[in-house]
């Protein structure tokens, strides 16, 4: 974990997670295989997420899921899991562990803060807890996961430096709003 910045009512940290992107048809067999391989039932509803202290599992679209593994693991374990899923002909799992950057935004003003960087409607009724979305933040494509007390944001690793700077800059300029 790296502390990125904090401003009134907002705390931003960078995390280092593993991630696997899974594609498939989402039917029963698919769900059973995923559960068998990961011990987690994949979310069934579009944009729904399931999470606990070990993982964060989101359904990105009708045939795509992102499994973020929060607890530290050996990379080989992740690659083994990917290979294991890929033994199934009609599923594709790709390792996204080190190609993504992960940020957590917490605090009572996290919505106001993020809305300086994105037009996305973060109101509870439009973006409820335990859902995710793919949108642009600071003009780059991101996934955002609503965990209630915090947002987890992932973006391509190549934007990491730019995104960090934008977060810091926004915190610095957030005067009394």
């Amino acid at each position, binding site marked *: 974990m790296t502390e990125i910045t904090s401003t009134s009512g907002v705390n931003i940290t960078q995390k280092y997670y593993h991630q696997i992107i899974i*594609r498939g048809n989402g039917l029963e067999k698919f769900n059973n295989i995923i559960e068998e391989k990961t011990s987690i039932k994949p979310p069934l509803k579009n944009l729904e997420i399931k999470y606990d202290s070990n993982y964060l599992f989101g359904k990105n679209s009708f045939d795509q899921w992102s499994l973020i593994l929060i607890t530290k693991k050996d990379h*080989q374990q992740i690659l083994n899991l990917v290979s294991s899923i*890929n033994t199934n002909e009609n599923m594709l799992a*790709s*390792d996204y562990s080190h190609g993504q950057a992960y940020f957590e935004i917490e605090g009572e003003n996290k919505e*106001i803060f993020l809305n300086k960087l994105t*037009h996305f*409607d973060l109101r509870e009724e439009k973006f409820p807890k335990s859902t995710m979305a793919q949108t642009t933040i600071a003009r780059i494509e991101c996934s955002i996961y609503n965990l209630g007390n915090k947002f987890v944001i992932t973006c391509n690793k190549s934007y990491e430096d730019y995104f960090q*700077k934008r977060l810091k800059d926004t915190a610095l300029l957030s005067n009394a709003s």
Partner: protein
Amino acid sequence: MTALRNHNCNYISNVKINFKFDGKSYFAYEGDTIASALLRNNIRLVGRSFKYHRPRGIYTCGIEEPNALVQIISEHNEPNTRATIKRVYDGMVITSQNRWPSLSYDFGAINNILSPIFSAGFYYKTFMGPKGFWKNIYEPLIRRSAGLGKPPKNFRSKSIHQNHNTDILIIGAGLSGLIAARKFVNTKYKVLMIEQDSFLGGILKNSNKVDTINGLNSSEWLEETEKLLSKAQNIKILRNTLVTTYNFTNHFVALEDKFAGKKIDLNKSELTLHKIRTSNTILCNGHIERFISFRNNDLPGVMLASSFEKYIHRYGVVPEERPVIFTNNSSSMSLLNSMLSLGCKPEAYVDSRKNEEIETDIKKILKENNIPSYFEAEIEGCDGNKKIEKITIRKGKIFIKIKSSMLCVSGGYNPDIHLFTQSKGLLKWDKNIASFKPDTPFQKTLTLGSVSGNYNFNKLCDEINEKLSFLNTAKLDFEIKLNVSNKYSIKELWETKSKINSNWSKSFIDLHNDVTIKDLKQAISEGFDRIEHLKRYTTNSMGTDQGKISSINSLAVVSKLLKKEISEVGTTTYRPPYAPLSFAAIAGRSTYEFYDPQRKTSIHSWHLKNNAVFEDVGQWKRPWYFKTHDKETMHQAVQRESKMLRENSGILDGSTLGKIEIKGRDALEFMNLMYTNAFTKMKPMTSRYAMMLGEDGMIKDDGIICKLSDQHFIATTTSSGAPKVLAHMEEYLQTEWPHLQVYLNSITEQFSTFNISGPKTREIMRKVFPNIDFSNEAFPFMSFKNFDYKDTKIRIMRASFTGELGYEIYISPKYGLELWEEMFSCGREFNLIPYGTETMHLLRAEKGYIVIGQETDGTVTPIDLNYNWMIGKNKKDFIGKRSLSRPDTSREDRKQLVGLSPINKTDTIEEGQHIVELNELPKKIKNPIKYLGHVSSGYYSPNLNHSIGLAMIRGGKNLLGKKFFVTVSGKTKNIPVEVVNPVFVDPENKRLIS
């Protein structure tokens, strides 16, 4: 003519501050605007008009100000600031604009003398000829004299954007806005209320019209309301924020001045641009008073009546003790009351209405206070030198001259319909208020209070309750008691007749753009009888002002001239923004270092340390070339890198290459359809250079396809083409071939990629990966293998884009930098060098390899490139197959890829130049010159010691050995070249497969 202070005003503090206007120091009180402060100091002349440079003063007390635009020197030279809005602070430095050498003595005022020639359509008529004058004389001259203030320089704004999503947006926190907001207190609705002033209250603070609300005096009610709203969790109020734009659908732009009345802190954002999306919009933005056109109605000292009153109540300054009041409606009663309560008596009261039309209350006040009154009379005009000195009243055939320095004019009220019309809402003419008012909304828009044309305070609560009933909010009842009559009556009066027929005396219809009544008449006489045409011909109601106080007047004047009803003439379109926005606010933080998002590879820090010069490829920062010392030029660096690589070895950071993982039962069929190549017989763990076409048969992208199995592939794409290729594939899977079971993932970011090549590459690879057999037999060209590397996997592919022995290494970005450094550590003894994209381009051109977007331009087929070998001829189908057999794509004279070699080896072939048959171009080209093709790539080859080129030439395949000419930029003499095979280096591929 001395301004007085209204000590009853509580909204201005007693703290004195100082500011400078045109170099002189003046005082103000905290809370003053520039305008109120200047009036407090008896400054009447504030600026010069746009076209005629006529002296202008403060006309209004708000955003509608057409005259008092100033430059704020102490705020990075911010120009065209409305003095009536901008709050003054201690140490503020302000100058007037559009004058030289000084405001009092402006050389530009000569335009006023020459004004007869600057009539409507002057530009259109005058600058027609002679030929060449426009570019060399007219345009530079007009550009130099155009504009008012000077743009700021050397200023790095820190303005930010803030997005909002809300249920209810209330624009305007005046009386109707506040009542509406009270209905939403502690409801389920999320409410955002926006007020352009730093205070809430609107008319409650700007006049003494309202006495009590529910038994509380207006200030007590306001205090109670503010407390109530501030406690409500669901209501947020933005002050000092002006809504400028109403877009589709219910999307707004508003600008907040974060330092209103304060000196800007350069470390903080001075402006916030709010972008608001709402479910329902409630416009409570009130009304704007309009003026009346008469002779010299622009002289400093002419001011709108309600603005005069606002200065008294809002800013505590009485601009003039004895002004003349000129009106055509009942609203001036309030001003009369306000002045008399302070012991000030107007010099005269002029009302165009007949005696019997004028309210008894007004007549009573006038009589009781012995105010000279002129009913059924009008102002003929004003006279004075840079300010009003004399006012002429016409009553019947009698002219009365009065000495006064101020004239308060009220031509009635216009609902402030700008935002409503921006939303595409429709208007209708209301004879009772003699103005247009909102009729049919186009979006979810409600209008409340005077913006809806309701000037009756007693009907305000009913209107609000009724219009908001669909939101199921509680009914509120407020009893509003007034100090003035609640009845609003008006008699249409748009212009008065001038008795003086002089070119220097003008009756203005648009003060901001210097448009006169005479201009309108002239335009109509010249046939511009449609209001939109007339607007553009005369510039009436155009520009940043958008005719706030004048547009309805001009419509009325035009309707009279055309002998039509105003409703028939219609309105022009009020365009956003309502008031000017600075470009800095619009750009927000998307400037300088954040102008465009930047993508960096995992090796970026190494590149920086090793003097890489970067080029932008999409948003990627890619090393262009590496400098060995500060004085090394790009040419020298690229020549050095190219030679070193061909002699030893070089490594390129190719992490930006697009990578797509393709897997599924039907992956083989999918790949056969997507690419021209045949993949069926391709062995697993081998790779192939492949080409992707559009349905028109033209090349879209290329890359290397790695086949893991018939169900699993990895495709690389060009760096900038990766997202497009993935979207292209997904689109076909979802729309054309939904029966195929194939899944795709972008894995561009999941691998750092290095391309190492050169004759000594194998030795370096053996040293870095001692356990891997890199022999030709074990690791042939276009094969790939996966290996364990620490806790991850590494994929190595035998491929090359330089024509040398080469490998591509794919590794997790976690270990990218580490492995890169290891490669250099092992490669030092073999003179391994890093090279950039420019060297890559040179090397691949020497080998005749194409680059998508350089040799191709959306009109090139694989056959044009002589890449027929890439087309799977036995394949049943692939995207673009049918188009390749169209007569046009199989023409012999299509532009085809060839190489060019200069006859004279010291000549340089430039990229982008034309290929022609002439050795010299005529100095003046009268007839078209036969064009054979163009140079798509041109480099100086350090390995061949002369310039080389790749070119697309008509029928090029059959022209090998022919001699043509290549044009040279800026010269007429062309250079002779020979058409050659595009592969300049190692045509036998000995190096490649060594």
